[in-house]
């Protein structure tokens, strides 16, 4: 992949944000203990993380990379930041602390995480760089007064064209200006897309990602056949699907795997936990948590499903329809029950209803419940089915 091949190896090879780079380099060169931290703010893909890594390397510093949104509790945050800001190496090598996604602290600001970070930075023995995507977030607002704010933006199209021309030259291609402009405009300001477009148009000279990437079937087959976690991780990374689709495909294969009941139960338990985590990631936008999701699939699921065949078959539609319909009705019963019992829908589902359903084998109880919850006749069959489980 050309995007990997031409990934900047020094800060001089990056494009865009020239003044931001100079400002950050000056800050880093002049930083002394007690000095302010730097706060890089800009959309994803503008080179914040890459630049911090390259600067640490060029300044001969050890990079300590932390993700603020990974620390779920104040205690965790305290321990992780505390270790980083006081880190020293035996050889006297200095460290650069990089605290990424500080705007990911949202929702946990009630425990004063931002204030804690501000205090920690003041006491730090090492320079601290923070990064955030959203300039309007509360965290950025609170931190901007006590930090050097450096804005990152996408590079202008002419600089992207300059980079494409250079890559084309090194690859022995000679696209004209019009062609290059087409790639730049088509990529909508995304440097990676522009490079990928250039590469895909030069099919006769280089293979494109699509030529080298495995198909979905091949990648999942490699995952199920993997002999250890490393192989499973490599296979999973090469599945050309979005995370949610990946989880759904795995779920489908597990369900129709024909595994012995105990292994199947264990695999479905992992899948249900993965599904919960996926839901949380989708809801919060905490994409960094995807690494934990992948780890669960590689380390917990794969040993249970080793040797399973990848299945593209779905359950028959009438079966699916019945499952969806029953789920909807059970949700409905639990909501009505929760309203009557003054409890939440969730605790009704998880704590009360299993017992209530068990009691439904008694006709009198079942009819009383239907009357109390104002359930129509259609629910009687469902309650009988649940009681028989």
């Amino acid at each position: 992949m050309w995007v990997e091949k031409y990934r900047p190896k020094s800060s001089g090879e990056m494009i865009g944000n020239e003044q931001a780079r100079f400002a950050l380099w000056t800050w880093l060169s002049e930083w002394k203990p007690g000095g302010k931290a730097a706060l890089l703010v800009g959309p994803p893909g503008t080179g914040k993380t890459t630049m911090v890594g390259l600067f640490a390397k060029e300044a001969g510093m050890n990079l300590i990379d932390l993700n603020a949104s990974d620390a779920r509790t104040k205690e965790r945050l305290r321990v992780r930041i505390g270790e980083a800001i006081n880190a020293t190496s035996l050889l006297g090598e200095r460290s650069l602390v990089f605290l990424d996604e500080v705007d990911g602290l949202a929702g946990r600001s009630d425990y004063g995480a931002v204030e804690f970070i501000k205090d920690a930075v003041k006491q730090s023995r090492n320079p601290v760089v923070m990064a955030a995507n959203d300039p309007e977030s509360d965290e950025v607002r609170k931190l901007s007064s006590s930090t050097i704010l450096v804005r990152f933006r996408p590079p202008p199209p002419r600089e992207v064209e300059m980079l494409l021309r250079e890559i084309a030259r090194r690859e022995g291609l000679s696209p004209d200006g019009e062609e290059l402009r087409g790639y730049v405009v088509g990529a909508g300001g995304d440097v990676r897309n522009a490079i990928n477009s250039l590469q895909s148009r030069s099919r006769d000279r280089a293979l494109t990602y699509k030529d080298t990437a495995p198909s979905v079937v091949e990648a999942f087959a490699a995952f199920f056949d993997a002999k250890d976690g490393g192989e499973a991780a490599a296979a999973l990374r090469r599945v050309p699907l979005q995370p949610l689709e990946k989880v759904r495909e795995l779920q489908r294969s597990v369900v129709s795997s024909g595994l012995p009941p105990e292994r199947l139960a264990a695999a479905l338990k992992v899948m249900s936990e993965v599904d919960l985590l996926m839901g949380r990631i989708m809801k919060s936008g905490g994409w960094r948590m995807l690494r934990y999701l992948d780890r669960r699939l590689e380390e917990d699921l794969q040993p249970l499903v080793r040797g399973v065949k990848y299945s593209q078959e779905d359950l028959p539609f009438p079966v699916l329809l019945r499952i969806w319909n029953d789920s909807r009705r059970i949700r409905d019963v639990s909501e009505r029950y929760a309203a009557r019992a003054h409890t939440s829908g969730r605790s009704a589902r998880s704590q009360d209803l299993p017992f209530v359903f068990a009691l439904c084998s008694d006709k009198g109880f079942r009819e009383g419940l239907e009357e109390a919850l104002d359930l129509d006749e259609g629910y009687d069959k469902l309650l009988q089915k649940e009681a028989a489980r």
Partner: protein
Amino acid sequence: MRVVVGGWFTLPRLGRDAFALLMKQGVVYDKEMGFKLDPASDVRGAVRTIRSATGEEVEVDLRCFLCGRVACPGCPYVSVCDRTAVSSLCLCEEHSRDGSAFEAYGRAVRAGLS
């Protein structure tokens, strides 16, 4: 009105609120020189503030990183480039046509970092 990022420009007297908002958006103010949008400014927000305070359309231009000239006139990307959203320096027509632009660019970056 045209505003060059990194260059001074003047504005008619703005209300107190508009002025305070521009300062909050990171616009630099000097009594003698006027206003300046710099790399730390929220360029998009500042343009919106100026537009609503003066009622004038605001066109943003970028300077060439290599020679400092205003880079936007004659640029083929002028209709698709959102100059309030991209980084604050660009390349002028002469330098972008130059076959050794990338080398010159790398040299200028290294010089700026040293």
